[in-house]
């Protein structure tokens, strides 16, 4: 039985510093993260929030690791009724130079067996991280409609 977790690796033509900024600067995240502004003072233990363009907070948790430009980790859970009862899971980003590229490894773990939230984030991350890669490499994010993500069994 595999652990209930989601792992995603992406190779990006950028620098660790630019990727770090892209993951932690709320104004930048708005450009590739379905308009979501990440809000935190990034101190360990501080609140971490995803703020939608209409100002509402969709997801919240805490900062766990902040080691620029190498490791970033935070917990969060979606606050909507759809995921009621789910506990915050831990998302860890590891940034490694890889030749002239950067290797980004996201591990999202700590889900209960059968978590609906795990299914949700498994659809969300490929879209968000694909748009991030496009934005850093081409200067243009992707136009992925939120509704284009689908359930995978």
């Amino acid at each position, binding site marked *: 039985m*595999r652990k209930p977790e989601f*792992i*995603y*690796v*992406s*190779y*990006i*033509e950028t620098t660790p510093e630019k990727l770090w900024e892209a993951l932690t600067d709320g104004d930048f995240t708005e450009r590739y993260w379905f308009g979501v502004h990440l809000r935190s003072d990034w101190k360990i233990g501080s609140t971490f929030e995803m703020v939608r363009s209409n100002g509402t907070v969709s997801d919240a948790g805490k900062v766990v690791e902040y080691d620029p430009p190498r490791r970033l980790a935070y917990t969060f859970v979606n606050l909507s009724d759809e995921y009621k009862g789910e506990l915050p899971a831990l998302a860890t980003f590891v940034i490694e130079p*890889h*030749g*002239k*590229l950067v290797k980004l490894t996201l591990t999202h773990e700590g889900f209960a067996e059968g978590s609906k939230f795990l299914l949700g984030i498994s659809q969300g991350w*490929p*879209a968000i991280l*694909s*748009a991030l*890669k*496009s934005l850093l*490499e*081409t200067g*243009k994010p*992707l*136009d*992925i*409609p939120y509704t*284009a*993500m689908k359930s*995978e069994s």
Partner: protein
Amino acid sequence: MKLDDFTPTTVYAIYIASTPERVWEALTTAEVSRQYFFGNAVEVDLKVGGAFIVRAPDGSLHIGGKVFECDPPRKLTVTFNVNWPALIEKLGPTLVTYEIEQAGSTVRLTMTESHDRPIDDDILSGGRAGWPAILSSLKSLLETGVPLTIQMQPPQRMLAALKRLGVATP
């Protein structure tokens, strides 16, 4: 061999600013695949039962298989058997499915690797390391015109696991 017997073990989805037709071409032609797939050339006879071959840069057979589903430019399912003696006897066939879907003005490409029996994570680690590199480079190629140059270390964890199983590797 029945597709129903196969269970997904690795899934990788990536969104690309491109068209389904261009993504399909990238997955199924030698000249494009050489650019993003570590110099390997995909040769596929695009019909059910047709041959699916990946040639190493020196022309030797790297991966061999057959086409099981072919619905251009939406879905391609092939057996994807690395050409190492004893591999298929010990582990059974590897199935790879590419699904290509329009997602707004972008394309979602989903690669699913499946097996018809339980496979150890150590064995699967080879593909899990390779697919993100291959598909990251494919995305860059289609979006910027230039693939990524990704230097990969040999997949030691997988090679050690194969050795334990008695599968000889080059």
